[in-house]
């Protein structure tokens, strides 16, 4: 008998003659206290994100590239990591070409092993999309893909995320249910609620522990 069989054998012996506890899942408790009308949903999300040092900006699907350029310029950042395979990556590259911006674009288009040093030590900012947002907790839902890999939202010190206002839901239960998460999850699904932080030294909050030091969420009101 191996360890698995021995452990399971002990557990089964302990449950002999017992009946499993019934599933009386209380959906109302996870949704009713966390309902927001159409007028307040985005406000709640912004308030929650900003309370943890996230920056939010209301914009539109036409104007957001200009807001990204402004945000980078304000921080003296001249390089941005994007995914050229996504619609927003292409839109942003098109915007730069049109405006003749000096901003350099870096594409996450090869396995991380091929350019790990550059990603870790010479990539100041990144832009990613999101699957949506959760108003109750001020969370972005990230669903990394081969086009927008996991490290894009983690390694660069400044992370810019695009969020469609229409993809913001009131609470986690609603989001999970609507997107049918139980039917299949990606390699790594994520909730991100603010920039990286820690209070491990004398309960003093400090940002930029290991992940992004800054998180800017561009909320596209018309999308």
């Amino acid at each position, binding site marked *: 008998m191996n360890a698995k069989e021995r452990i399971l054998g002990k557990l089964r012996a302990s449950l002999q003659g017992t009946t499993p506890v019934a599933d009386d899942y209380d959906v109302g408790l996870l949704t009713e*206290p966390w309902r927001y009308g159409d007028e307040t949903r985005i406000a709640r999300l912004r308030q929650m994100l900003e309370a943890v040092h996230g920056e939010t900006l209301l914009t539109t699907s036409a104007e957001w590239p200009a807001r990204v350029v402004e945000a980078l310029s304000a921080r003296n950042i001249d390089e941005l990591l994007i995914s050229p395979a996504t619609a927003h990556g292409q839109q942003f590259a098109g915007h730069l070409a049109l405006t003749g911006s000096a901003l350099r674009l870096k594409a996450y288009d090869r396995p991380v092993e091929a350019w790990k040093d550059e990603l870790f030590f010479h990539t100041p900012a990144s832009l990613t999309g999101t699957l949506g947002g959760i108003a109750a907790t001020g969370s972005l839902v990230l669903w990394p893909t081969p086009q927008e890999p996991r490290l894009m939202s983690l390694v660069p010190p400044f992370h810019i995320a695009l969020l469609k206002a229409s993809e913001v839901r009131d609470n986690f239960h609603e989001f999970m249910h609507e997107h049918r998460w139980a039917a299949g999850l990606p390699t790594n699904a994520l909730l991100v609620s603010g920039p990286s932080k820690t209070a491990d030294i004398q309960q003093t909050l400090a940002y930029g522990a290991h992940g992004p030091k800054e998180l800017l969420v561009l909320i596209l009101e018309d999308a």
Partner: protein
Amino acid sequence: MSNPAQTPAQPITFKRNAREALADPQLRRNFRGAMDFLMDKRRSQFPDGDELERLRAFGNRVRARALSKLPELLERLDANLSRNGVRVHWAETVEEANAIVHGIVERHAAKKIIKGKSMVSEEMEMNHYLGDRGVDCLESDMGEFIVQLREEKPAHIIMPAIHLNAGQVAQLFHDKLDVDYTEDVDRLIQIGRETLRRKFFEADIGVSGVNFAIAETGTLLLVENEGNGRMSTTVPPVHIAVTGIEKVVENLRDVIPLLSLLTRSATGQAITTYVNMISSPRKADELDGPQEVHLVLLDNGRSQAFADGELRQTLNCIRCGACMNHCPVYTRIGGHAYGTVYPGPIGKIITPHMLGLETTRDLPTASSMCGACGEVCPVKIPIPSLLRRLREEAVRPPAAEPHHMRGQGAKYSKKETMIWKAWRKLNTSPGLYRAAMYAGTRLRGLMPANIGPWTEHRSAPKPAARTLHELAREHLGDQ
């Protein structure tokens, strides 16, 4: 049951540790401040008492349901993780778990490991085990990194360096990392970030714990604020997750109430910065993530706790640390005094299952039984009644059946048993009782002034000159 070989030879020296901690005013100030802070933060997250109580009951039911089908869910978890490409390993003891991890390390000829926060790896003393075999295991959680630099164990399960103030960390970084002395916390964190970023980059293997393992989807869920957990589970080519067998939940949606309870109870946050859900290693078309993901499921005494319907409730724990934050004993002596991986109230009921009552005999008695731990527990573990139960197990005759616990009878004393028998006889025999009370009151002058630990900080009790019955008769007559 745990392998006796891992048991420390001597009982954990809780009483001596506690005395030393109480004599350290700096430590007491640090803990007092930290616990007040955490209690306030938690309180602010639960403004609606009704919602809190309903959510606690819900959390309790979700955990109880998972435990009521634990073997089935573990098999389902194993099957779904395997289907997703995650390799699942089972270990009854910490030795087995360490050997599994070391086997993976050897197969990859790995020399550098970066670890996210994991209490199970503390349970395994993985750093020492691998260190002895030439493998460098570096903690990446900022608090864990600090206590590792000090060659200490975590003082708290959520905030490992909670016993230190900024000045102490400043001195530590100055001494160990060769940086200028600064008490600026932002700067200290940046020093940690710069030091550890290179380590994430170089690591051969990343190790993490698991907050919840989801049977339905084959998913490992981790919560954290720093991003070190995401780094450790994404950057190195191999990820090894270690967890106890009790961490499984049935369905993905079950994590929603538990997450809400965990983050609000632990650090008073609506949610942590990152909720990381890992379901598979890197797929063929993906550009990052580990090529291999392993999960090590550890028993280490958990199946012993599981065997008894009452003690099984110990396994409901979601590791939020709220019980220690609210415990008047923990607040005064801190986490190190317990001498165990899991300190505080929850540690006092978990650890005896892992190490046996022989070495942990003092832990269940290290409680004022004020009930605060049970009142704040987000999944309603009745910690005080489990402490009472463990006290009972510790004084039952070692050979008595049924035998629930390794180390049963560790505090058994024939003399004490005789005293309690005599006490029962005295209190159930009216004539004997009256005679004893008469003698006790009339011979009160013989009461010694020093009766051991009781009189270290208190004056000795002295019987009254007349019994209560006599006084009542005096005032009321024979009614």
